[in-house]
């Protein structure tokens, strides 16, 4: 498989590490006052940490370019054909960061 890293260009997949489904979003960090968290947070984290769909087809995935620029990438890939539809850098990847001044 070949992955076109937005920073490094097309590289072979041995340079990358796979993490998994990019759909689940981590519940936000909350302010803790004396130990109490947000209501329903246990269920939300259970979903985030453990529940995954078993895709046959296109899914978006996290990949890490550890053998290159150390960017985290979000890749749309077909798990049946290994065709890659798109590769984009995670919001905080690279030098120019969203939100940073």
């Amino acid at each position: 498989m070949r992955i076109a890293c937005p920073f490094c260009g097309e590289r072979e997949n041995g340079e990358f590490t796979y993490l998994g489904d990019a759909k689940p979003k981590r519940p936000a960090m909350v302010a803790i006052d004396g130990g109490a968290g947000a209501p329903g947070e246990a269920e939300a984290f259970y979903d985030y940490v453990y529940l995954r769909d078993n895709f046959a087809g296109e899914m978006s995935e996290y990949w890490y370019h550890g053998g290159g620029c150390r960017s985290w990438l979000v890749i749309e890939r077909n798990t049946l054909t290994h065709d890659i539809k798109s590769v984009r850098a995670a919001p905080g990847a690279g030098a120019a960061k969203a939100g940073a001044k």
Partner: protein
Amino acid sequence: MASAQSNRLAKGGLIDRNAPLSFTFDGKAMIGYAGDTLASALVANGVTLVGRSFKYHRPRGILTAGPEEPNALVELRSGARREANTKATTAELYDGLDALSQNRWPSLGFDVMSVNSLLSPIFVAGFYYKTFMWPAKFWEKLYEPAIRRAAGLGRTSGIADPDHYEKAWAHCDVLVVGSGPAGLAAALAAGRTGARVILAEEDRLAGGRLNSDGGEIDGMPAGEWLAGALAELEALPNVRIMTRTAVFGVYDGGTYGALERVNDHLPVPPVHQPRQRLWRIVAKRCVVAAGAIERPIVFSGNDRPGVMMASAVRTYVERFAAAPGKRLALFTNNDDGWKTVEAAHRAGIEIAAVIDSRKDLSQHHRALAQSGGFAVHNGVVVDVKGGKTGVSGVEIALANGGSAQIAADVLAMSGGWNPSVGLSSHHRGRPKWREDIAAFVPEGAPAGMLSAGAANGDFSLSACLRTGHEAGLAAASDLGFKGRAGKAPAASDEAISISPLWHVEGRKKGFVDFQHDVTASDIALAQREGFESVEHLKRYTTLGMATDQGKNSNVTGLAIMSELTRRSIPQTGTTIYRPPHVPVAIGAFAGHHRDENFHSVRLTPSHHWAAERGAVFVDTGLWKRAQWYPIAGENDWLTSVNREVLTVRNGVGFCDVSTLGKIDVMGKDAGAFLDRVYINAFASLAVGKARYGLMLREDGIVMDDGTTSRLAEDHYFLTTTTAKAGPVMQYLEFCRQVLWPELDVQLTSCTDQWAQFSIAGPKTRDLLREIVDPAEDLSNEGFPFMGVREVRLRGGMFARLFRISFSGEMAFEISVPARYGDAMARNLMKAGEPFGVVPYGTEALGVMRIEKGHIAGAELNGTTTADDLGLGKMMSKKKDFVGRVMAGREALTAPDRQVVVGLKPVDKARRLRSGAHIIPKGAAVGPDTDQGYVTSVCHSPMLGQWIGLGLVERGRERIGEIVRAHDPLRGEDYYVEICNPVFYDPEGGRQRG
């Protein structure tokens, strides 16, 4: 004395008659010529019997002249370089080549195992499943060894391969697989447009069937055209021709696997050169011009030595000037087979007869028969007469009901051609049946791949040239190359006609798969027993499962099955094609990654100095770390380690700790970032201070620990354990880039940039004062415990100094750029001499951390929570952090969890062992009474006995309790006392002193 080349033709062939090469086959000396393969040299020397078959030990001869050869497999070379199952048809002859036939005992001519032929009723399809079912215990002791001895191929040498192998990458626009007429036309068309072209050819020579079939192209003899085409390709800077290179697989994203047999044609590779090179070729487009493979016809005796594929006969005659016989008969169902008669006739070989299964004879062939003076029979061969060393004649059943006998010493057979659909089917493409050519052609090829020429079912020379040109041009123009491709080379021959004939019923065995000894009756048996699907047929009969992967048998096998089941061939279908298309040695896949180069090695900055001192090293991940430093007179590790520990605890010692992961965390939000990833607070850490931190995974289990220092308002220096340096870096980047991109923070791994030494013991300051500039205040007030500062060294260099302690002693860690690590080790040794300094290794480090109850990898084992490790109180109640929510789950906070405690044998002389299970005193041993286990042990010189840490259920409530350490692995069972994990200096006064 070498035998004469009795079957060498007087002229012709692409061989160098001025370069004779001597070789041996089964110990018999012979002569061949440069340009020969082992097979062609054997043919030239009149050798017909070359091996015994796999199951029945039937005598076998050379069947083909190419990589699809099922019979002529030999053990090539001797000693450590012996290579089993080498195809004689592709092994290039070299001077001094030695080859042995396989699968025979005691000799090729007299093989006692040929008795298997008489036992053939038990070796039929499915015999593995039927014959040896019962009793099961007989399998291992009786059946398997007997079968393995009776049925097998070559022997491995059993000695390490002395040669080396390489891996390499190549990139191109258009990869052309095969350099026959189609491949050459494709490479020329694409190359002329300016596209970067790689032309890969498995053979030593480019040209494919042009080297065997001749013909006329663009008005000149094929050989002349070939030379011109190659000269043009070689002159194009954007074209690379790779011979001896077989493309064996298609992988995702246009990556192709190819094996270059760099030096297989030499007895020993030249110094510094590999035997083989594994290529990964990245190509935007691929033209498969891999040709086709001629298929046998199944009839009684079709495996007798002397029965040969018609195209192979042509190759031996034309390319190698070697005559497979003196009187040739041809059995064919198509026009192409007739070319063999023409070639043999031209070479002066007598033609006995042509047996053509088709009714109508073309005008051209009729004329040929007349001029050659031979008979043409409309019929089929029903038996082949002869002995184990060859054919004496054939018996024919005529279409008109009569029969005929013909004397001949070689029978050429042609059942038509199967396009090479292997590569085009590697992404689960299912080839499509074409009735007009009675063959499968590519369908559903991987993206960017085209097939051309015979590989696509276009068998005539003119069609090969035209479709090759079109495919090469299409591939290049698809990529935007606009250069002039010129005209397709032209030839004037016509398409061949075929009328399918797969199988002639006969009284004796007719072979479908020669290498695995699968006969037509095996297929019939599989059908009778319900194994009709091609995938079942394959497994039940082992059809196509030998090293040739059924290259000349699969299609015939499924065609016979389709006749038996009265289904069409497309309905019967093909099995799935998978890489590798040709066998690839494991050594080629491994490349240089073997022995000491299996993985990379990381050396600490003080490694060479430690090696000079005779340190014993231990592998920790990729690192080599000094384990202990023996001195004269010390013969066992424990003596050395005890000395190192005692010297540190009473004086001073130092240890290279550079392997710990180091990460610079910088930016205005660095503190906020660390607050989120550590369970304890870091934003509030003062500049110039260090703090021990613990990280959890999202599921609430401990991930890693380490000391992190604040060097400036916006600069933290984070350390990880040695093992987790990489994973923690990757995880922190995930947090930064994916989870919280709004934080202004950057991470840089600097593990390799800093050499760091722990200096520990009551005399640490004495030593440091010899190293550090006298102006620096190292007193408790000037440099308190957990303080961090950059200091000036004597001589003006700067270093970072951290007052942290893993040993529990008064200690500092000093950090200098890695290139000064070696000098620092030497300086510490020299400066510490008056104080009796010793270097200490990872063993002493481990002893001191266990004496102090510090956790390490054995306790941070992916199952423990912060509280299990006795660090639950570190979990902040004032801020959120990764793992907080999940760490609060019921099971992770249950009171009966196994927690870290100290353990010491009640019998002080006893050795404690890691892995021993903790069982309550008086309880029976079993999973229900198992309450934990010993995680880390050491011999403590301070306590004068073995001590350890363990994870024990409710352990902290049970200090003082005596429990059983049960160790079934080592057969030990003894009592231990649960105690405080901090064995030494529990008040911690020494490190603060």
